[in-house]
């Protein structure tokens, strides 16, 4: 399924995207807020890298069912996780 070159490219990208937030936190390069954004961004890109290079998600036809079920799971996750945090933080604000 995976060519050797794509495994190594995926790994190199993943190492870079892991080292970047770790270095930013350890070296305190940026303000707190900016570092949090950097961590979030690096995580999202790295998840995409893993999905594409290791799990075979892409725009090609071969794993279309995978991509569709991933999309469906993402919708569920956004509703459930987003909804939970929204409702509970709202309740929390009302109680304080």
């Amino acid at each position: 399924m995976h060519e050797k070159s794509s495994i190594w490219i995926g790994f190199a990208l993943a190492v870079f995207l892991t080292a970047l937030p770790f270095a930013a936190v350890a070296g305190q390069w940026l303000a707190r807020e900016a570092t949090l954004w950097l961590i979030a961004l690096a995580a999202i890109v790295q998840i995409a890298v893993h999905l594409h290079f290791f799990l075979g998600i892409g725009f090609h036809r071969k794993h279309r069912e995978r991509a569709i079920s991933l999309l469906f799971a993402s919708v569920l996750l956004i509703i459930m996780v987003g909804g939970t945090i929204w409702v509970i933080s709202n309740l929390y604000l009302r109680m304080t």
Partner: protein
Amino acid sequence: MIAASEHVRAQVGTDTELGFWLYLMSDAVLFGLIFATFAVMSTNFADGPSGADLFDMKNLAYQTALLLTSSLTIALAHRAAMDTHTVQAVLWLGITCLLGGGFLLLELHELSGFVERDAGPGRSGYLSAFFTLVGTHGLHVTAGLIWGVTLIVQLMIKGTEKRVLSRLNRLSLFWHFLDIVWICVFSLVYLPELM
């Protein structure tokens, strides 16, 4: 062999892969909800220690490096098995299991250290959520290790037979999925506390 063997054999491949993928998606929902619980509990310290008092950057970096490298080695094991290089596949899979085992040891060491410092799961809402999240991930890694060792034995006995390949393919999906969960763990749970 059981009677359904031929039928099963015909399904091995795309059907079993899609079924396993759907399981992974439901597992993603499970982890998502544990993350949501953690987010809700993230400030409920009950005057106990917070992550900033407990977490150790070095330990986290080692754990992350082990897991990340293991996702490379399992991809190489899968590739080698696809090319019917059984010995190479066994070696890469063995390295993967060692790296995963190292990750688990570091995690157990860290968590037992917390319990010793009176920061166990019963200490606060924050720590309950933390232990649930990290513990669930650790249990998944343990299951992956058992699976990996089983496959090493099967590869040595049966070689790169179609069914063994299909199992290795699914293990590699599972393992990469666990790595993605770990990305979320260190980005959401650890790094913000270590700043």
